[in-house]
């Protein structure tokens, strides 16, 4: 059962109390529009957080929740509002959801995204589907260790929300709605206790509920026993994706995809050079990727292999959005890389081994095989997830 998102009914007295407080800053003619909050001004609002159980498909692994940020209904609701609220950006024009929209599986479907100043970032927004499971560092290069840490970053990023947390927290403190919600979620006693860390915790709680429905065609076929659901091409694609031809006794080449996009989540969240760029040496990468975090030479040009769940909905593809379609992506893989020294060995072994070649070279994939892989990738589409009412914009 999913918990419902009804806004709790507040009692009238409290409402009146808050409207008065909300009026105070307006009347204040001082340069500093926000007076010091009264100590304990939220204490009369009940604090009874309800534990929130994340809904996940039975065949999905357990979700780890940090001990210092337990899931509560109130926390998730607050996080959801913050996520969709442009109050976080300097000119109140963009929210997290401007770049992470449900219909794009929480991407913006742009190669790179514009922040409030109209400047394009250098990377493509990432899907937030199943982000609760990412344990190996967030972002394409893994520079953020947790959702709680990550959520602090866009606000001050000059090419994203270009704001300062001091200003955001000030706005939240004097907002008519948020102080109550912070109280209900975290038990703070007065509005001065609202911090960026609590805001980030709430957003992280919301992000942890962005979990697959488990109803994609793939899930039904693979995990729910609907064995006849795939047509021939989808089945071929599935077999090539998983290098399973030998076990299945069919004549199809290996596409090697599952090595990096395998498992129930269709990613191991590890870092690879998947052969995108032909550079003469490792310093030639335009974006050094994982190296920016580890400063380890052989990590230059490596990026995290993201989940392929809902990949049909999150075009364009790769860290810089260079491929517009899944066909272009599979064309890329079929070329067997560019030969850069830290390219992953799987990238060079897609297709059949060419008999007699020594050392062994690989054929890549035929147009029909590529088409089958694309068709298989589309079975990962999870419309129940993107349409889930619990994760939509609460202000609509």
């Amino acid at each position, binding site marked *: 059962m999913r918990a419902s998102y009804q806004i709790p009914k507040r009692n009238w007295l409290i409402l009146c109390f808050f409207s008065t407080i909300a009026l105070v800053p307006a009347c204040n003619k001082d340069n500093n529009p926000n007076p010091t909050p009264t100590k304990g001004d939220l204490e009369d609002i009940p604090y009874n957080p309800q534990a929130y159980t994340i809904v996940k498909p039975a065949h999905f*692994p357990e979700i780890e929740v940090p001990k210092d940020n337990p899931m509560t209904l109130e926390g998730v609701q607050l996080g959801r509002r913050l996520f969709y609220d442009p109050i976080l950006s300097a000119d109140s024009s963009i929210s997290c959801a401007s770049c992470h929209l449900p219909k794009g599986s929480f991407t913006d479907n742009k190669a790179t995204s514009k922040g409030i100043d109209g400047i394009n970032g250098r990377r493509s927004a990432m899907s937030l589907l199943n982000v609760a499971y990412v344990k190996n560092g967030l972002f394409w290069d893994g520079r953020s260790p947790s959702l709680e840490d990550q959520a602090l970053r866009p606000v001050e990023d000059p090419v994203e929300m270009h704001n300062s947390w001091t200003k955001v927290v000030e706005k939240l403190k004097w907002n008519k709605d948020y102080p109550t919600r912070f109280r209900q979620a975290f038990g703070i006693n007065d509005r001065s206790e609202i911090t960026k860390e609590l805001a980030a915790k709430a957003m992280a709680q919301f992000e942890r509920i962005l979990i697959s429905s488990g109803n994609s065609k793939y899930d039904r076929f693979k995990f729910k026993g609907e064995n006849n659901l795939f047509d021939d091409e989808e089945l071929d694609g599935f077999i090539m994706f998983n290098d399973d031809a030998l076990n299945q006794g069919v004549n199809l080449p290996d596409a090697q995809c599952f090595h990096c996009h395998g498992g129930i989540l269709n990613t191991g969240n590890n870092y690879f050079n998947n052969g995108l760029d032909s550079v003469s040496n490792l310093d030639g990468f335009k974006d050094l990727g994982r190296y920016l975090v580890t400063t380890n030479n052989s990590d230059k040009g490596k990026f995290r292999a993201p989940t392929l769940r809902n990949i049909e909905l999150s075009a364009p593809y790769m860290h810089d959005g260079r491929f517009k379609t899944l066909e272009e992506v599979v064309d890329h893989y079929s070329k067997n890389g560019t030969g850069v020294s830290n390219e992953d060995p799987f990238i060079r072994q897609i297709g059949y081994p060419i008999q007699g070649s020594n050392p062994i070279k690989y054929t890549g994939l035929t147009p029909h095989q590529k088409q089958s892989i694309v068709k298989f990738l589309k079975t990962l589409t999870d419309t129940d997830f993107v349409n889930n009412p619990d994760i939509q914009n609460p202000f609509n």
Partner: protein
Amino acid sequence: MSLRILTMLLCSALLIAACKDDETKPNGAVSDFKLTFKSNYNGERLIKYHQYPYGANAYPLEFSRFTLFLTDVTLLNGTQETVVAPSLYLDFTPDNASSDTSAYLNYTFANIPEGTYTGIKIGYGVKPSDNAKNPADFPPSSPLYNDNEYWLGWKSYIFCKIEAQGDSDKDGVYDHFNIYHCGGSLVYKTFTFTQPITVGGNAKTTNVNFDLRKLFIMDDGRYYNMVTSPSTSNNKDSLRVANDIMGKFGKATTLEQ
């Protein structure tokens, strides 16, 4: 039964139990037991992308990945067994390393009976009873939770991953790319090593070294042909290659304390 016989029986039972105990825990005390796993190439600490001379013509070979699952790492004392680690996942080339030097992986196991043991037994891979399950059956704290190390196609964990590339004709261009991902309960191996290991007192850390070179030296002393058997990927040879590699861990492992 007379009371005397019963008493005698009881006493001897107690004695047996006491004798058995004596071997490992004379005082019943327990201590931390420290293990460090190391990966080497020809006795030297393994370095990713470092060029090692390989084959009869000593051509350059580089490794880029080495991971290994172990099961039931067990201290032995005669026939008595103390399992110190039911399951371990060793990643010598982790994604978060700040250099290409392979990681030393340190473990401390608490509450291990003190004493001097005669050896250690190690399962290489994931034992069949665990391998029959899948990652969703394990809690996040278990090494077997990691679904990236599981292959649905085989219904098996990937016991060991070794990836490498080499320039067999020495023309400055890599010409073979190796992916040895070994899995499947058929290639699970157990090896026992005789080595006095002390637990308690000021006992030092026990090092377990895996030498990758020894994994690729065949019984006749020649190098494994990485050009003609480049991978375990979907070819009819894959089980044989996986079995060859897993079977060599006995020779490739050394212990010291």
